[in-house]
């Protein structure tokens, strides 16, 4: 069975690693990739790390990306543009932790991108992230 993949982007590697641990407590099969921090572990986001994570999370059913703050979004947009991927990749406007958790649960029961996005948007009213 294949799943929609999940990519986690934060300025801190510890945040995305920790979030992945939380998700793995209950969901084992869905691809979840942690792409927080820069290459050297410093605070920030890395286009290369995000691109690699998207490729690894992709099983052919699309990838959902969750992020924390402003420049994480810009770097994720860039990663999507540069990766020139065949599959659908969506940046999700939802709180990073709660949104990714709901996304992973929905993905684990075999839902597709559209269904998962609808479910996330129903769970979280649209918010503006600085």
């Amino acid at each position, binding site marked *: 069975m294949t799943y929609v993949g999940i990519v986690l982007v934060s300025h801190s590697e510890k945040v995305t690693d920790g979030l992945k641990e939380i998700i793995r407590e209950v969901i084992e099969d869905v691809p979840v990739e942690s792409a927080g921090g820069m290459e050297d572990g410093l605070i*920030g986001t890395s286009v290369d790390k995000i691109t690699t994570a998207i490729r690894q999370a992709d099983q052919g059913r699309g990838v959902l990306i969750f992020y924390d703050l402003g420049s994480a979004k*810009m770097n994720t947009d*860039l990663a999507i543009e540069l990766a020139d991927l065949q599959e659908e990749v969506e940046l999700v406007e939802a709180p990073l932790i709660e949104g990714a958790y709901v996304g992973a649960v929905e993905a684990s029961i075999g839902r597709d991108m559209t269904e998962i996005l609808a479910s996330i948007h129903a769970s979280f009213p649209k918010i503006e992230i600085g």
Partner: protein
Amino acid sequence: MIWKEVDIVSWMDKTNEKIQANKSELTILDRNIGDGDHGINMSRGFQKIVDQLQETNYSSVSAVLKDVAMLMIRHIGGASGPLYGTAFLRLSLATENIQTIDTTTLAKGFHAATAGIKQRGKAKSGEKTLIDVWSPVTKYMNDTEEINPTKLVQVAELAMENTEDMLAKKGRAAYLKERSIGHIDPGAMSSYLLFQSLAEVLEGGSTT
């Protein structure tokens, strides 16, 4: 002037010299209204750019610009990395597969680059960002018959100074609201240095 690979390298060399010379000025400006890392980020990023350009042989202007874009994305960091990187990606795209790159081609490239920054940062003119320099400079380049280097610097300088009275709407400076007024935007200043260097290359004319 016909733009060759060496002219882009020279543009980046000149920009790097100015960024390094104004590193603390950029830091002070960013400390006023941001997180104070613009000087350090730009200085680190541009040093990487000039080092890499020196070591590499390029077969087209577009290839140099693409490499500059990727180095910006990888090494500048913060919000400036993806914004400058996007601008240079668009410049690279606008010059791709074009044999003779004259200043008109480059001006069109700057138009695409400015649109790219706006798209990436979800920002527009008047929000106290680097767009407030890129936009008027691009307009001057595309409206004029022949780009005058002195005039180009004047347009960029005035545009940078105009950000002083603006209220920040984007990035960390936006949290300061009215307190962001009275300081030049650091991104506007680094963009001014970039265009000042471009004007110097234009002034010097073709190297080949």
